[in-house]
């Protein structure tokens, strides 16, 4: 059974304090690894798709990386507006089914 595990469950950072979120996956034949941001009561907002080990993608203060077993979301010099839940998901095969982790709740304080 495909599994995606995220850690930590919650993370509190001060503004400017860089850190990384972890997503480990156990799936048969990874086709894509996705990162989403979700604000309370809203739908997930697409951030990145990674396809193969060694791939990296960046967007503003966020950088996502992928290895054969896990993915990291690096947050550099975060700001309070980066506070949200960050979700990781994996897909296999040709179907669009996403298997999600439970997310990391990030809080960035002044």
């Amino acid at each position, binding site marked *: 059974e495909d599994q995606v595990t995220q850690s930590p469950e919650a993370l509190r950072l001060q503004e400017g304090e860089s850190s990384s979120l972890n997503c480990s996956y156990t799936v048969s034949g990874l086709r894509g690894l996705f990162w989403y941001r979700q604000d309370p009561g*809203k739908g997930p907002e*697409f951030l990145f798709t990674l396809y193969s080990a060694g791939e990296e993608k960046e967007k503003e203060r966020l950088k996502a990386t992928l290895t054969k077993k896990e993915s990291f979301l690096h947050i550099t010099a975060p700001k309070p507006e980066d506070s949200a839940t960050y979700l990781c998901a994996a897909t296999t095969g040709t179907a*669009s*089914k*996403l298997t999600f*982790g439970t*997310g990391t709740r990030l809080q960035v304080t002044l």
Partner: protein
Amino acid sequence: DAGVTQSPTHLIKTRGQQVTLRCSPISGHKSVSWYQQVLGQGPQFIFQYYEKEERGRGNFPDRFSARQFPNYSSELNVNALLLGDSALYLCASSFPGAGSVGQYFGPGTRLTVT
């Protein structure tokens, strides 16, 4: 450009009732998927539809059903509602046949079953 839209935003139903949720995908997207997100958890896959045909089904009871229309919009139906069906129901759309390309989610429908 309009994103994925869902209606209604919020819904309160009583146990045993039936509910229909609606979704309109991004223009040009032909695949629609439905997810259930319970508070504090990640979304769980319910269905995927592509070109009006069911292409995937998650581990949900037969009380859950869906369909896709010629304009690629979709409905999710849940019969005989249980308290445990209370959740945020999310619709996502993607490019045709692009299983490994990002899916774009709507704002969700918050269903409360009392």
